């Protein structure tokens, strides 16, 4: 038995194809991104080694920090909106008829491609014939703004589309976690006279703290990497006011063919994502120990 199950040849046969794929297409590229960041390179011609020039340029690049700030706002906003999703999930799991169907309906936008969502929302925000402005006009607001062309409004407008896209996803996760809490625990608290709010705050939320932690990582790191919808909807505009790190990297690399600088941004993005993931896990780890 053990002999069959520790056959080295079979193990390599089963593991190597997948392992080679992720090594060549994920791990080697992230190392190379850091390395290409040290080069002056247009993607076609010869590479010239320029040391840390791209990275020092990155630190002084106001446009980059502008995009990083937008990514940060997006991350903050996504993390805060988790509270709302948690609230909705708490309601959904409190003896609501049709809760299962409702959470499925909420999920539908998340299954659509970001391209389709971006195109649809560009129409929703259309200055004259869009849903939003037509509605605003019908309730008496005469000059509703052109949402996606207004530098101060474009980010909030995109946030709303992102909420629409992801709300169902987080509600689904919280719903599943809350359903896993044994009914007897909640019943016991109820008999002791705890109010629904107390039960939610003192029992349910602490019990799903692990899941909440995962969703915080997902929301923040997901926001830092966010690309598709913004790229299609505004391309980072107007005038960079909706640019995020990933779209800025894409524009530098595949728009102005500055592959060296694009690589430096890509490598920086990787570092931010890894550090933030590690940081959130660290910060939330102690809390969890107290609870259990």
């Amino acid at each position, binding site marked *: *038995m053990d002999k*069959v*199950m*520790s*056959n080295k040849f*079979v*193990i390599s046969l089963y*593991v190597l*194809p*997948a*392992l080679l794929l*992720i*090594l*060549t*297409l*994920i791990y080697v*590229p*992230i190392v*190379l*991104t850091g390395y*290409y960041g040290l080069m002056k390179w247009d*993607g076609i011609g010869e590479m010239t080694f320029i040391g840390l020039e791209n990275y020092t340029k990155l630190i002084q690049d106001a446009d980059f920090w502008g995009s990083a700030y937008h990514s940060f706002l997006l991350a903050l906003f996504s993390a805060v909106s988790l509270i709302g999703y948690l609230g*909705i999930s708490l*309601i959904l799991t*409190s003896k*609501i008829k049709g809760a299962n169907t409702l959470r*499925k309906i909420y*999920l*539908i*936008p998340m*299954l659509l*491609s970001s391209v*389709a969502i971006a*195109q*649809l*929302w560009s*129409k929703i925000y259309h200055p004259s*014939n869009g849903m939003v402005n037509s509605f605003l006009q019908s309730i008496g607001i005469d000059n509703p703004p052109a949402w996606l062309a207004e530098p101060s409004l474009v980010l909030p407008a995109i946030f709303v589309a992102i909420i*629409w896209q992801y*709300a169902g*996803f987080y509600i*689904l*996760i919280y719903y599943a976690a809350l359903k896993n809490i044994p009914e007897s625990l909640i019943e016991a608290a109820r*008999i002791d006279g705890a109010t629904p709010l107390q039960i939610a705050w003192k029992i349910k939320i602490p019990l799903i703290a692990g*899941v909440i932690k995962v969703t915080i*990582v997902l929301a923040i*790191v997901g926001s830092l*990497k966010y690309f598709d919808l913004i790229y299609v909807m505004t391309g980072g505009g107007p005038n960079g006011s909706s640019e995020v*790190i*990933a779209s800025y990297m*894409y524009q530098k*690399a595949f728009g102005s063919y500055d*592959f060296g600088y*694009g*690589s430096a*941004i*890509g490598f920086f*993005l*990787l570092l931010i*994502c890894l550090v933030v993931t590690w940081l959130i896990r660290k910060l939330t780890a102690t809390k969890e120990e107290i609870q259990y």
Partner: protein
Amino acid sequence: MSTIAQANTKHEAKRKNSAFSKLGYGVLYAILGLIAVLQIYPLIWLFFFSLKDNQEVFNESPFSLPTDPKWENYTRVWTDGNIGLYFFNSIWITVTAVVMTVLLASFVTFAITRMKWKLSKPVLGLFMVGLMIPVHSTLIPLFDFFLKLNLIDHPLSVVLTYTAFNLPLTIMILLGFYYTLPKEVEEAAIMDGCSIHRLFFQVTLPMTLPVVSTTAIINMIYNWNEFVFINTFISSDQYKTLTVGIQNFIGQYMTEWGAIGATLMISIIPILIAFLFLSNRIVEGIAAGSVKG
């Protein structure tokens, strides 16, 4: 206090609160219902304007029903806009990548949970860390790599990348199932002299079919919707999938709402149909794929 007395006081409290709680529940249902409407209505609105012509879009209220549904919007974009070709490409690229991902991931999960080897932990770690890598941090080297292999503007570049990037999530979902699966059946098969390959293909793989189909569905949705890789690696119409195809097509038909709506509807209908029939599987897969991270 006896349990009966306890039950009584509880009952009384319930009666006192019932009017209040009825109102409370009414408000809650209203909130939940409103959210459902907000999630669905944009899609209904999209469907309506996909059946209108510009005349109707610009002169009537955006909330009106299409007076004379222009189904020809759909037939027109299907033929004029290469949408048929993009649709076909989406299907075969998605299916090829899904089959490869699920099969390779099953091999790996089998080797990690069933076989004994020293490096299994670190190898699993490599797959799991893969979940955290941002796509944009791999894009330039991947582009360069495929360029050198003459695979830029070749569908293989996309199929391989989809497979690699979906392996970590797929393995994660499979692992949970493999760990809970009793090993007795497999042990008995080995005792009976079953070879390891027969064990995998004829015993383990059939037993894991439920989770395999869950991961297949999740992978299908992700691949169907993927945008960054296909937009970067593929430039000729011949190999474009729906996501990037509709993006270019809409760019050309900026002002024709009906055509845009019809194109978008065509791209999302397969997902909506899949959801109609497989919603439980999809919900289960998304939940399994997110929480265990």
